């Protein structure tokens, strides 16, 4: 089985999708000739031509707006927003248009687009290269929201997203592009080539949207995580010696509630993790659902470990990031309660 980084896996997904379906087109800022600032689209223009992979003007609104029009025509655009922090200029087109087109036209027009964007911190990117805006999309009916945590999933989920008949927000944790990351920023990173999830099949396969995966089976406490935080959870559980069951949600909307409740009903405890700010973050929805569906099984309050309710700072990045120490404390607290 070939080895791929997350970047290579994402590129391979688009390559496979473009090869199978002429309707798939790829565009965004710097994605054409250059192949994207993170190189996720490198080689696609050369392979599929300038009409199917091209650079765009710097207008996120325009990128999403034309993608919606193309989808209404019958294409399947898979577009890149250079950083998730820059998606807001396109927010109206996503929320008011892409998300509602099928509904408001009673299915006459649909919007099968994928909006890819690098998300999350950990690269000293400051306020504008570090954000995790997933909760701003999970509140929007009509969207799907996906956050892969490894190359194998990234490829399978991205192909599934491209093949999906509805708009998908595809958030790529940029701290994972080149290797898994457990939150210990002062330790060297193991590359994906040394990690089993770096084994990625060359051809077509999908990982279904809406299905979570258990990353570590355990009985003491359920940890709900996605993206980078999956590795932070693993590190924290290991360091504290806590038998946590770590669920990698993979798709936030629609959510795999069955997997969550099954685990929490077993463990009776739950810790929710994300990098985004706490208030009204996606962790709020998770905590609300868990207490609603597992109330009688819970032995401790659901805890959230998240970024702080501040903009993402530059110098204090590692004080902001919810690393293994903070996660470990929460796990311990959950066990004590």
């Amino acid at each position, binding site marked *: 089985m070939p080895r791929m980084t997350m970047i290579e896996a994402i590129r391979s997904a688009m390559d496979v999708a473009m090869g199978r379906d002429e309707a798939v087109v790829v565009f965004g800022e710097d994605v054409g000739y250059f192949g994207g600032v993170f190189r996720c689209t490198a080689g696609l223009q050369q392979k599929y031509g300038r009409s199917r992979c091209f650079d765009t003007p710097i207008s996120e*609104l325009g990128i999403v707006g034309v993608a919606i029009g193309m989808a*209404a025509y019958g294409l399947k655009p898979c577009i890149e927003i250079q950083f998730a922090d820059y998606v807001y200029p396109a927010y*109206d087109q996503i929320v008011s248009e892409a998300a509602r087109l*099928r509904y408001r036209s009673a299915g006459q027009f*649909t919007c099968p687009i994928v909006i890819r964007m690098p998300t999350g911190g950990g690269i000293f990117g400051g306020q504008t290269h570090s954000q995790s805006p997933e909760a701003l999309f999970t509140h929007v009916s009509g969207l799907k929201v996906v956050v892969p945590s490894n190359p194998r999933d990234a490829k399978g989920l991205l192909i599934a997203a491209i093949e999906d008949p509805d708009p998908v927000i595809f958030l790529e944790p940029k701290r994972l592009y080149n290797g898994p990351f457990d939150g210990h920023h002062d330790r060297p990173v193991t590359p994906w080539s040394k990690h089993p999830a770096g084994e990625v099949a060359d051809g077509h396969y999908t990982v279904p949207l809406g299905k979570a995966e258990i990353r570590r089976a355990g009985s003491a406490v359920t940890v709900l995580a996605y993206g980078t935080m999956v590795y932070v959870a693993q590190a924290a559980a290991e360091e504290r010696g806590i038998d946590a069951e770590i669920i990698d949600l993979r798709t936030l909307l629609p959510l795999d509630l069955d997997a969550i409740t099954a685990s929490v009903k077993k463990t009776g405890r739950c810790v929710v993790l994300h990098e985004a700010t706490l208030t009204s973050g996606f962790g709020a929805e998770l905590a609300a659902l868990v207490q609603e569906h597992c109330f009688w099984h819970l032995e401790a309050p659901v805890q959230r470990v998240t970024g702080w309710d501040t903009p993402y700072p530059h110098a204090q990045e590692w004080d902001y990031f919810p690393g293994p120490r903070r996660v470990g404390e929460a796990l311990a607290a959950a066990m004590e309660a």
Partner: protein
Amino acid sequence: MDERPRLSLNVPEPEVRPGDTPDSSRVVIPRAGTVPRPPVDVDPKEIRDLAYSIIRVLDREGEAVGPWAGTLTDEEVAAGLRHMMTLRAFDARMVTAQRQGKTSFYMQHMGEEAVSCAFRMALEDGDMNFPTYRQAGLLIAGGYPMVDMMNQIFSNEADPLKGRQLPIMYSAKDHGFFSISGNLGTQFVQAVGWAMASAIRNDHRISVGWIGDGSTAESDFHAALVFASTYRAPVVLNIVNNQWAISTFQGIARGGSGTFAARGLGFGVPALRVDGNDYLAVHAVAKWAVERARRNLGPTLIEHVTYRVGAHSTSDDPSAYRPKTESDAWPLGDPVIRLTNHLIRCGIWSEERHKQAEAEVMDTVIAAQKEAERHGTLHAGGKPSVRDMFEGVYAEMPPHLRR
């Protein structure tokens, strides 16, 4: 202390407000037939003047004159008149229906009928419009069943949009009519995307974007022009300048630019202004722009100069912000009367025939309304189901909507 003159804010104001007497003599309007018609493959640089003039075909006497005349046969023109009359009758009935509580909301076209009715006749089946809420003429002239429009307006059991959308936010894919959004402007850039897709697939079909004068201030307008200009998309971009955006006169959106068409100049996009109350002129300009797009020569921006005679919507009362007499003083006249006069002058129409046509048109509209009302109105009779509310959010209903 600084002795220089102090800064101050310029806030444009219309020349007249309620109580004032409108004076249209200051409006400069070129004589019909005087604006040249360039070849469709003209270099946009050569025709910058067209963004500051007005292309007109029908003169005061109802004669079709000049290089833009002659794009339609007499029968086609007569059909066009009937489309406009139908739209006007349709509007009248629906405004009344709203007052009667049969629906929650309505927006009419009074004075602007020529724009969408004439434009439609320059398109082919398969082309796609991305309209605002004031282009129902595209549907009427395109033969979309009036009863389906009314079913949508009444949100009844036969509503093709299942009660989900605000009245008049039609969607009619098979009739080249994209789902109307309540959010202004968004569709303008989508039209460019549709056209780009057609170009990517080496298709023949083109798309048409529509936007109001006020809405040109929205960001989507800019994005549409940027993308259309860069990728030379086969799209016609229409600005319907009906002088008003609810209570706000067009000078607030237009600023110092002179005209809305001028916005195209900064993008190297050919920009034309047309008398929007002149059915023949609208058709001729539409045909020119459609041919450009179809021949892969790229986008065209058209400003249709017209006037919103009615209220903005059934929720609006324009007497609070403009003189009641302003519409009478509007120098470009009424599109229905002007085309009627033309047909009479051509000898293929008459006062009597017109009266008769009015009656026929009204009968058709009333018959459609009767049929629609059999399926219910907003608060009475057949309704879309509650199921319809939950379905269609996604292709497949996810578990959290099923719960």
